[in-house]
């Protein structure tokens, strides 16, 4: 029961989506629609699972006084605070006339989004610009033929995609040769290489999907071979 049911569910769901591509007729077309709805709903619950799990871990951390536990208070406060603001705005909007959305400009939730969420996530990722800078100084080396080709191509793309190298060539010629070179690299060798990778990945995904549907691969339901 613990093993067979999940395998059966996996195969049925997989077969419906694979077959409905070829057979649009009832029952496959209809099943595809219903299953599509289910995927959407299940994924929302999965997000909630993640959020509740985060809460659970944070609470456990505080109880066990494990390393960095005071920060867990902050996680809990900011999480619950956001939830309160969101639910307040959401239900206020539903019962208002005319109705409005929890994320409309001017709501508290939109304020949290604009000034806290946006600021934090964008800053978190913008640190990467600094790391790229220091890695370019300390790590990116033309240590062999392959790395050399990579760096040279990267160099021309970086310099050609913005009017940087064209500034230098502009002293001699009017045509933006480096911009054109970067464009050519993107549209020809890059497209060719990407295409080879795409075909390889497609076959890889096809084979792993096939194994999942046929029940040969079971790691997702917590069992090896």
């Amino acid at each position, binding site marked *: 029961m613990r093993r067979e049911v999940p395998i059966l569910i996996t195969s049925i769901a997989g077969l419906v989506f694979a077959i409905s591509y070829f057979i*649009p007729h009832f029952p496959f077309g209809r099943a595809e629609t219903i299953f599509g709805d289910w995927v959407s709903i299940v994924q929302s619950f999965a997000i909630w699972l993640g959020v509740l799990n985060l809460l659970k871990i944070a609470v456990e951390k505080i109880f066990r006084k494990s390393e960095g536990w005071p920060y867990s208070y902050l996680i809990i406060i900011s999480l619950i605070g956001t939830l309160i603001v969101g639910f307040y705005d959401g239900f206020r909007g539903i019962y208002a006339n005319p109705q409005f959305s929890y994320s409309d400009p001017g709501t508290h939730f939109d304020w949290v989004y604009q000034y806290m969420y946006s600021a934090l996530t964008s800053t978190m990722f913008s640190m*990467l610009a600094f790391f790229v800078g220091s890695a370019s100084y300390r*790590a*990116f080396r033309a240590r062999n033929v*392959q790395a050399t080709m990579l760096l040279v191509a990267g160099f021309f793309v970086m310099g050609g995609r913005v009017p940087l190298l064209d500034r230098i060539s502009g002293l001699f010629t009017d045509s933006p040769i480096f911009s054109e070179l970067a464009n050519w690299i993107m549209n020809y060798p890059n497209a060719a290489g990407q295409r080879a990778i795409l075909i390889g*990945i497609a*076959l890889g995904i096809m084979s792993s999907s096939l194994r999942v549907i046929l029940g040969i691969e079971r790691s997702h339901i917590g069992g090896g071979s």
Partner: protein
Amino acid sequence: MAAQFALRYGSTRYPIQKRVGQISHPVRRYNVTWYRPDCVLKQYCNEGKRLLRLRETIHGFLRFTGLVFLALAALFFSPRFSYSQEIVSPAGSLSDTAALMAPQPPTNVIVKDLPNDRGEAVIVRWNLSPDDDGNGDVTGYIVSRSESAVGPFEPVGDAVRGALEFSDNQTDDSKAYYYRVDAFLEYLDAAGEKARLVSVASSVGPIKSTAQWFNLDRKWVLLFLVFVAASIIYFIEKAKKGGKIYVRKIAGIDAVDEAVGRATEMGKKIFFIPGIQDMNDVQTIAGIAILGRVAELAAQYDTWLEVPVCRAMVMVTARESMKEAYAKMGRPDSFREAQVHYLTEDQFGYAAAVGGMVVREKPATIFYMGAFFAESLILSETGNSTGAIQIAGTAQQTQLPFFVSACDYTLLGEELFAASAYLSREPRQLGSLKGQDAGKVLFLLAIIIGGILATFTSFDLSTIFKVE
């Protein structure tokens, strides 16, 4: 009277005035378009030619690849799998007066069951109204429908000028419908309100929508999919029965021995980073398989191998895998659980912690095998600055460039999985690898042969592969 209309085309909101101050539209004579049987005949001829060409393509395909899926292909041609109705508009008939000022209706309206669908849709096609010449005499088309030939007609949708078809997706398969397509001209009347002049077209029909049993556009997909799937299953079965499956040498894996040896010589540690994803990611699984091999060598040379992880499940699995490896080399006592330890789940926190460890302990060799994201940069940079030999492997495409330029060896994408299959000798992985190679052979042959044929003959193999 007519001069009062500020005749405008384009958007009513951003008008571009045309022929200001003129009476721009003289009384028009309405051209009656007759239904021309020769056109329809031509269409059927084309249909026939298409079928002939398909047959030729099949012969060509068989000759070149030797695949015998004829039975399957023959099945696709069976007409009962795809039955679609098509009705062509009869003679147009209109009084002249009705068309005063209004644009002429589109001609040659065809209604047809939308092919290869699950029913409940009818496609309406037409030729442009003679007035729809890009001068703004037509704003768009209105498609209306009725269950009787004489109406009343309910609008079911509109299309912009220049459009040639509309798909009515709200039909009932049990009912027959009549359609009408009218061209209209939108203008601002004297009061500044939007108003429309609509043509008067005749109705077409009746038509019923139906669902099809097989999507004929996709027959080649099925054929190739079955071929690749069958070869994957075949090779998995073969590998399970102990059949030999060859996997080529992979540079990064060959370098593992050398890297472990160097650490031993220098008397320094080896670090192994299995990515930052959990065990549900195939890349992590592949990484752990490679960890097994590294652990065997470390046990053999008696070198300290350290695995900092950021997921609890990965910690458990890595410990098991290492314990097994040490036991296999006859040194089960040398393994310490502390060799695998959990740091933190947070991405940058983990990177900072590993960075700190690398700077303090200066390992001789660092492996990165698994799923990496932005932290790949920070990790490989720190490792590089301490002069460690670095071997990386990931299928995370955006991180590969950084690994290639900062590490000594890098397993590119699929090589990671191939390496793990090679090291673990697992039949499922080996079999799928070989099956995928069969797919690659198929596609390679198609590209090369297709290219030669396209260059030197007029034969176009790409039509088989093109899916629309």
